[in-house]
């Protein structure tokens, strides 16, 4: 009997393939996600392992407030370079070397910074010790930089941008850009560093331009042979100041890898969510395709029953078929994922996320999860059609045109569908409106509500197909003649089939609509915040707008003729009320460039806190506030103001201190934004004058209000485009659903199509008929999905407390148009098949 099922599968290859496509795409996404993120993780882990491979122990700076100990602004402080001498003098230490590091961007021949998105790393190294095996930097060609005019750059940049030893190149760390002569080409460890660039200076130069005079960030230690690791670490700890820590090389590599894996895990979960959506849509497509094929095989099942097959055997044969399809499709998807991983990587690189990569990692977990998930999803989707197959009575074997019996539950259909929708709406309302529940509960409520709502709408959809098709098919019926009228009738004649096909598309369209609605709201809110706050003529940020820059660029603007105000916002981290939070700094000039609302009684100067923060911690004007900064120092301030920042975003975090205080507390202060007011406002002359003053700061970017708004929105726009691209996968899956239904329908209506041809319908008209049916189906999907999406967008927007609800009508018109195009594309193959039918054979088709 199982043999029969398998042979049946072989006999219906096209149908089996149609069913499989939906699984293939979803599983390719699952597998591709795992392959990509595993490869990135392996890239990081390989990088850090080779970075530390020559050393036994690593000494690094220690942030007193915990968190990252990378060399970033407001993070781990550097320690005195005298420590290196003390370490070298230890009895069990064979060798030790140290360096300083700071984010440093290379400046190209065009005067612009390279890798503004991926960022760059700068090191200051001791050239006398740099060839020691413990040093992570390896010289590829040339020599180490030995004076303040020399630099070494990484081999990837040298190759990509065509630089060689002897050329000059610019570099900018926390101060002004300078030009250096390339003394050598280096690499970091033995692995890829992604899109990041390297700039290596001699120690004194590094210390000077990183503002870390007399300091080191890292010491690499090699022990004498025969010394145990515990012994070495113990000895090192005895000489460490409180601002430094030591780890074994392996522990340090793991620690650094773990720091990055949080990020890769987020990418992984994010992409898997879209794989999940694609599979969910795929399960609709599979269920529908199987339902149709099973309905078409009614006679076959009935014959098997008359030959003595039990219901269980029929069930088993359908399930075996689904298992085989699911497994094979998962297998194809698994390997397709390898290709998709490369595509996803290109997508990320296009978005400015170029991460280190090892050679492709194809983990056992990827294989197991992909195969099991794809098979199980197919199996679950096949259950209902399989059960319906068992309900075929043997007598159907002798009846012509026997139909699949209605499901036993069919008469409860409408009440059940309405109850499902009601449950979904209740969950959604709970998630969106119940302020007493935790965020997690609310999001869970919304998530479950969305899934159930999709089911509910799909269940109600068969009742909506006729009225919707009548309206949406009206243009076709009106303008496309007989084929158009027949197309509309065809879309209406098996409502549950059309509904199931359209429902798959509904899910994808609903989700893109949610994204569009939220994005419109977010942008609208952000824009209104900028309009409200921005009272300057220009803003100055880093090139990518969100990493902080050195303070010198803003200082360079102060003396430009006509400049009235330059007010900067500093950014750093501190521990406040036991929690590590981001804090900002500002100066007394701030109110001249930023119009923020102050709570009555405020002095309109820093230190100030946000209204919500004040409420949470019972603070008021005059309350003392203690901040612990990474160096371990405690800063006590008295709150002089409380602000009520607009919802769309504010340049300030919850706690803002005066820049004078900030600069004493942080070793290497950096600006997030600077705002500039000039006589005469933003004019081309002023812009030119200011940019001339910024010539030595290629990492900084001067913008007018409009440009600032656009640049700051870029993040949202990028995310929006990423979401659209990823959701389009689900839409492609649902398109295959339309293809499947149409192809199977063409099979089923062969005789009818033959008759139409026999009475004079041309091939072209047949094709047009199929095309219109496809478009009507796609439009039904849009008619279901877009309102659902708008509703969900409003609810989710409300749940994440978002006052502006905007329906982006322009975008929605684009979606409807896209649905029509999608319908046309889906119809290409089925229409061609239908057009090719031989009239005589079609009439005899049984």
């Amino acid at each position: 009997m199982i043999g029969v099922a398998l042979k049946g599968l072989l006999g219906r290859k096209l149908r089996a393939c149609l069913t499989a496509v939906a699984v293939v795409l979803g599983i390719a996404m699952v597998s591709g996600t795992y392959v990509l993120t595993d490869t990135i993780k392996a890239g990081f882990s390989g990088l850090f392992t080779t970075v530390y491979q020559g050393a036994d122990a690593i000494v690094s700076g220690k942030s007193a407030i915990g968190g990252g100990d990378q060399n970033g602004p407001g993070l781990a402080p550097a320690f005195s370079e005298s420590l290196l001498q003390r370490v070298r003098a230890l009895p069990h230490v064979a060798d030790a070397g140290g360096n300083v590091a700071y984010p440093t961007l290379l400046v190209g021949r065009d005067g612009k910074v390279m890798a503004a998105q991926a960022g760059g790393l700068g090191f200051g190294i001791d050239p006398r010790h740099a060839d020691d095996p413990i040093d992570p930097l390896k010289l590829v060609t040339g020599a180490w930089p030995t004076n303040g005019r020399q630099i070494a750059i990484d081999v990837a940049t040298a190759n990509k941008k065509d630089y060689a030893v002897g050329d000059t190149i610019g570099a900018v760390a926390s101060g002004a850009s300078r030009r250096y002569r390339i003394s050598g080409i280096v690499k970091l460890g033995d692995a890829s560093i992604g899109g990041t660039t390297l700039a290596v200076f001699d120690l004194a130069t590094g210390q000077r331009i990183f503002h870390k005079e007399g300091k080191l960030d890292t010491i690499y230690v090699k022990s004498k042979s025969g010394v145990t690791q515990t012994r070495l670490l113990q000895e090192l700890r005895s000489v460490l100041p409180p601002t430094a820590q030591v780890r074994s090389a392996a522990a340090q590599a793991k620690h650094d890898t773990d720091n990055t894996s949080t990020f890769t895990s987020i990418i992984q979960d994010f992409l898997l969510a879209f794989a999940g959506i694609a599979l969910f849509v795929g399960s609709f497509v599979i269920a529908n395709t199987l339902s149709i094929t099973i309905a078409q095989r009614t006679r076959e099942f009935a014959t098997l029953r008359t030959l003595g097959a039990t219901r269980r055997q029929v069930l088993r044969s359908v399930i075996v078929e689904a298992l085989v399809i699911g497994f094979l499709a998962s297998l194809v998807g698994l390997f397709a994922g390898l290709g998709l991983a490369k595509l996803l990587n290109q997508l990320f690189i296009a978005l400015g996320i170029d991460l280190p990569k090892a050679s492709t990692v194809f983990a056992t977990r990827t294989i197991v999860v992909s195969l099991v998930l794809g098979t199980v999803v197919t199996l679950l989707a096949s259950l209902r059609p399989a059960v319906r197959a068992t309900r075929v009575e043997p007598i159907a074997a002798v009846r012509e045109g026997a139909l699949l019996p209605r499901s036993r539950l069919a008469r409860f259909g409408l009440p059940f569908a309405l109850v499902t929708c009601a449950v979904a709406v209740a969950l959604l309302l709970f998630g969106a409106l119940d302020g007493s529940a935790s965020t997690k509960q609310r999001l869970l409520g919304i998530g479950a509500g969305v899934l159930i709502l999709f089911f509910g709408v799909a269940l109600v959809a068969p009742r909506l197909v006729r009225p919707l098709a009548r309206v949406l098919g009206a243009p076709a019926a009106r303008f496309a003649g007989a084929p158009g009228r027949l197309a509309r009738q065809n879309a209406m004649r098996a409502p549950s089939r059309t509904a199931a096909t359209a429902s798959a598309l509904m899910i994808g369209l609903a989700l893109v609509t949610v994204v569009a609605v939220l994005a419109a709201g977010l942008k609208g809110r952000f824009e209104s915040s900028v309009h409200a706050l921005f009272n300057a003529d220009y803003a100055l940020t880093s090139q990518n707008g969100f990493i902080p820059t050195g303070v010198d660029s803003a200082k360079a603007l102060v003396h430009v003729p006509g400049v009235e105000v330059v007010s900067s916002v500093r950014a750093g981290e501190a521990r406040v009320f036991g929690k590590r939070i981001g804090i900002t700094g500002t100066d007394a000039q701030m109110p001249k460039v930023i119009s923020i609302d102050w709570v009555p009684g405020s002095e309109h100067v820093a230190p100030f806190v946000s209204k919500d923060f004040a409420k949470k911690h019972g603070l008021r004007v005059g309350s003392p506030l203690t901040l612990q900064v990474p160096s371990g120092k405690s800063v006590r301030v008295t709150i002089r103001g409380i602000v009520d920042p607009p919802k769309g975003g504010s340049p300030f975090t919850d706690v803002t201190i005066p820049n004078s205080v900030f600069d004493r507390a942080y070793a290497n202060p950096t600006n997030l934004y600077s705002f500039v007011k000039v006589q005469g406002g933003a004019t081309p002359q002023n812009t030119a004058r200011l940019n001339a003053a910024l010539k030595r700061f290629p990492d900084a970017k001067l913008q007018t209000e409009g440009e600032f708004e656009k640049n700051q929105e870029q993040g949202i726009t990028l995310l929006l485009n990423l979401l659209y691209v990823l959701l389009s996968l689900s839409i492609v899956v649902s398109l295959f659903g339309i293809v499947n239904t149409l192809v199977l329908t063409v099979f089923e209506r062969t005789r009818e199509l033959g008759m139409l041809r026999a009475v004079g319908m041309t091939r072209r008209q047949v094709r047009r008929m199929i095309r219109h049916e496809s478009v009507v189906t796609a439009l039904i999907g849009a008619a279901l999905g877009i309102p659902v999406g708008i509703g969900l967008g409003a609810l989710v927007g409300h749940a994440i407390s978002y006052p502006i609800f905007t329906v982006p009508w322009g975008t929605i018109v684009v979606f409807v148009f896209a649905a029509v195009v999608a319908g046309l594309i889906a119809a290409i193959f089925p229409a061609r098949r239908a057009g090719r039918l031989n009239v005589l054979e079609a009439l005899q088709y049984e």
Partner: protein
Amino acid sequence: MAVVEEGAPAPAQQGTVVQARELTRRYGEGATAVDALRGVSLAVAAGELVAVMGPSGSGKSTLMHILAGLDKPTSGTVEIAGQEITSLDDRALTMLRRKHIGFVFQFFNLLPMLTAEENVLLPLSISGQKPEQRFLDELLRRTGLDERRTHRPAELSGGQQQRVAIARSLVTRPTILFADEPTGNLDSKTGGEILDLLRESVDAYGQTTVMVTHEARAAAIADRVLFIADGLIVRELQRATAQQVLDVMAGLDS
């Protein structure tokens, strides 16, 4: 030739394999209700080939469906191999079909992806039995399929497909074989060959067979012909010729 009184119950006889009593079947309800059978009783003896004849809408198909357990009567009983079948559940009916019933259909109902031989063996593989190779070979030779074993239905003519269907129905040596218009979808020459094959299987294997047909020629191979009109058995002929059958039919039509 013997004529039975209308509505008179057929006497139970020795070696009876199918016994129907007072079968009625009503479709629909109320004013639109249709009585397809209005009290039919009959018995089929072992080794007998019985043809059920009647004009369309006479109830002959309904009768066969009920006798074969495909449909349930509104009232009355059917016994196959001594077992009352109208009250059996789906599972018991399935077991009954495996053991006692063979089918030959008007549209052959072969599985298109299986070869001729695989189609023939299908009932055995469904019930998990091993085929007797000698019997299978003989069956395929007798049905003229020896050379066509590995062909799929699409590569066979209509007559050959029906031969596969007949071999499939005989392979389990069923107690009773039901043939539903077995020549209805064939040209007259091929139809004749199929009828010969059915007759031969009755003679060679003593295969008890009930055949529903509206062709006089088909009825002429039967040991006994039952004529149905308006849901009742109205005439019965023993070993009738095609002409005799036609005469009775003509009488029924008028």
